[in-house]
């Protein structure tokens, strides 16, 4: 892959991002695909100074990711990836900070750091490996497991409702929210590049198959015969069309999405809801995120929302620079002797 046409021109090749550690995921695990797409796209995203890249993770199968990237890496503790990454980024805003995390790591124990990173708009790029299960601990249900799921810790079925990670991110005002699937390499590469280009907090949820403990969780979205009818590929400015032979579309009445048939002449593409990645309020994206709640609607992949506002790390840096401009660099002697002092002679 390293010398596939489009990257030949780059300074780096996929190899440059491959560490000397053997990859230890289960054969067939969706994580392999994510690693491959990242290593393929990075030469394009990272034109120079790969030493400025830092991968941070928590704990989980997915969180082993940094070991396999030949960049700076920090394998943190469970749930703390996004806040450790925050420390790295605030300390040195010139670094490009990426987070690899799982549905348990980010949304269960790590939920608070996640929503605060969204709100503060910390410029870190979060790849959520969502396999809807706890992999590393051998198959307990996770906050994204569907209600009623039978797992090692829910032998009679879980009784709680899953998070919609994108809805949570949107509710927390994340500036970039997108989704892709492990089995769709091209699309994932697209999304990784978009993440790489975003300035601000970015969440990319990736549906990832855990073939050991939750095999087939995303079958409908990945199997040849079903995927077209169940996946809605979002493209900015385009009407929302899907279906085996592109015969279905999403129409909006008020804030309420419905599926219409555009093959029988009753409706045409012009009647369909047109995707707007940049809509000012999170509402548009929110409607999309909640398509998942209903079986009659497809699951969208692509960029749900992107907007821009000052990042936390920039805010801190700018504030400091402004103050130094105004008052000049601090003088310790002045501070020490500044308060009301007296002399004993």
């Amino acid at each position, binding site marked *: 892959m390293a010398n596939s046409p489009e990257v030949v021109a780059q300074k780096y090749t996929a190899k440059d991002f491959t560490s000397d550690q053997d990859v230890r995921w289960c054969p067939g695990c969706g994580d392999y695909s994510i690693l491959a797409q990242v290593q393929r796209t990075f030469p394009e995203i990272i034109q120079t100074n790969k*030493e400025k890249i830092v991968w941070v993770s928590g704990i989980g199968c997915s969180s082993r990711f940094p070991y396999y990237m030949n*960049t700076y890496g920090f394998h943190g503790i469970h749930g703390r990836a996004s*806040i450790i990454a925050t420390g*790295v980024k*605030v300390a040195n805003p010139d670094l490009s900070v990426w987070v690899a995390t799982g549905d348990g790591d980010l949304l269960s124990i790590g939920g608070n750091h996640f929503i605060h990173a969204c709100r503060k708009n910390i410029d870190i790029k979060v790849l959520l490996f969502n396999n809807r299960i706890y992999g590393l601990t051998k198959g307990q249900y996770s906050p994204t497991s569907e209600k009623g799921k039978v797992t090692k810790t829910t032998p009679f079925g879980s009784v709680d409702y899953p998070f919609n990670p994108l809805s949570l991110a949107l509710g927390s005002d994340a500036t970039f929210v997108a989704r892709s699937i492990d089995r769709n390499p091209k699309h994932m590469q697209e999304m990784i590049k978009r993440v790489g280009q975003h300035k601000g907090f970015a969440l990319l949820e990736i549906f990832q198959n855990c073939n050991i403990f939750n095999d087939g969780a995303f079958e409908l979205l990945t199997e040849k015969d079903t995927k077209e009818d169940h996946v809605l590929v979002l493209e900015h400015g385009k009407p929302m069309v899907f279906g085996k032979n592109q015969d279905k579309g999403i129409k909006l009445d008020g804030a309420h999405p419905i599926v219409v048939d555009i093959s029988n002449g009753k409706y045409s593409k012009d009647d369909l809801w047109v995707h707007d990645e940049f809509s000012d309020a999170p509402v548009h994206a929110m409607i999309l995120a909640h398509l998942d709640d209903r079986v009659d609607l497809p699951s969208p992949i692509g960029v749900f929302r992107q907007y821009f506002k000052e990042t936390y790390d920039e805010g801190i840096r700018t504030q400091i620079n402004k103050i130094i401009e105004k*008052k000049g660099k601090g003088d310790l002697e002045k501070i*020490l002797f500044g308060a*009301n002092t007296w002399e*004993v002679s």
Partner: protein
Amino acid sequence: MSEIKDKDFRVLTSVTVRFAGDSGDGMQLTGSQFSDTTAFIGNDLNTLPDYPAEIRAPAGTIYGVSGFQLAFGSDDVNTPGDLPDVLVAMNPAALKKNMKELKRGGVLIVNSDAFDQKNLKLANYDSNPLADDSLSGYELHQVPISSLTANALEGLPLSPKEVSRCKNFFALGLMYWLYDRPLKNTEDWIKDKFSTKQEYVDANTKALQAGYNFGEITEIFTTRYKVEAAKLPKGIYRNISGNEATALGFLAASVKSGLPLFLGSYPITPASEILQYLSTYKSFGVKTVQAEDEIAGVCAAIGAAFAGHLAITNTSGPGLALKTEGIGLAVMTELPLVIIDVQRGGPSTGLPTKTEQADLLQSIYGRNGEAPVCVIAARTPRDCFYMAIEASRIALKYMTPVILLTDGYLANGSEPWRIPHVNELPDISVKFRTDPEKFYPYLRDNNLARPWAIPGTPGLEHRIGGLEKADVYGTVNYDPDNHDKMVKLRTEKVKKIVNDIPDLEIDGDDHGDLLVLGWGSTYGSIKDAVNKARKSGLRLSHAHLRYLNPMPKNTGQVLKNFKTILIPEINLGQLAHLIRSEFLIPVEQLNLVRGLPLKVNDILEKINSLLGGGNGK
């Protein structure tokens, strides 16, 4: 008539004063103004603010009483004093709460206006103590402070509420007169504090002066007091609290190490001020992150340490509990990190605004697995400055977490500080690893410290984390013998710090019947108790540990030379536990866990009981 008065000046070597009133009465301000002026005219002093956990408990209630005690003198002053010689009580509740502490025969100044039915009831007084004889045996002065203040401010464009807010300055002025201190400092302070509100400047200044003049002209005070300046070493001084000293210490460490300072923090009493002070030093490039919680605070700091900053995180007991797992990560990744724990009353939420020394064992042992860290403790407010620098030095040199212990008393208490010049401070500069040649993330130097290679350095890309590391290479490793080796190496590294810290000093003979051993904020109380015991003819020594893990090399040697070791602590014997285990010697303990500094007298009594008839000669 002033010359008449001059006759009545009594010279004292030290005095203990306590101001007490409603949370709304501004007692903390009164106390700190009196302290600053007192420091300014050259007395040594030591203060103890004591405020309720509630922000503004309803006026007149006992639990709403806020107090400020200080001791000042012409000799050196090491504690805020046990029992006050003078009590200023702004209302019945303040009197009720503090009376039992006033020295027999002490001076009692009350705001008589406040002793109405309502307030007496709120303070659960059945009869007015000013009326009955319950206060005989004290030098009681009833001063209608409220009305006198009102009179003084007549004509000023202020609401009654605003007027009554000035009465603490009247009280302050009166105390200035009584102890012969100048008004100027406070007048200046008022000027720039209320620079925008001229009427407030006028009002408070008038109230201050009115109080002073009241003393001058009325006859109710037959004597005034003089406390000569203390013979302090030459130099420029300022009055400083432990929290400000801590903040300044880390600022200095940042400057002397050449590393930008990063503080990951979450507010908690009594540690918040450190965050507040540091967030004002932006012009030094200090980055303060008020995180979502304490876990985030320490983890953000770990990220910043990885990125090459001088990274610290500050908190109090409950927060330290939350940082436990994060500190373990710093141990495994061997990154420099300083954790400041401003101890408060526990367990759990406990007594948030009170002081205690009960986090020592948590600091040393409170982590899963064998997770050794260096633990040091400051012993006075100004010592916080030097220990902050020392904590940074050790963390950076040994690539290890260091826990710096202070407590609520050190944090809020203050004392004069001879300000050092920047060039007198130790240089603690560090070198990052930049050479890719033979770079191994866990290849150790003579101090067993690993190299610090920060993101952004070409060719040194590497990965670290919380899983066990392979010796030298730092890759993930599950080999049994490697684990055994690494566990022992990490412990060894912290032990090695012993070669890099000063010996334990002894105040007094290096051998004898009794050594009083302390750590942290009990320094002043122990020192005074020991000196008093000596004055009474006893022979004993005092040693105070600033390094708890590891302890100074000579500690065992020092202890061995005394028949009896007494360890007074504001806990149930945590240092005693360490000493017993480390040196297998029995120790005497004094453990009073009252949320307050130890009283000199309590220690003295214990000393006397131990030295029985006395061991003078």
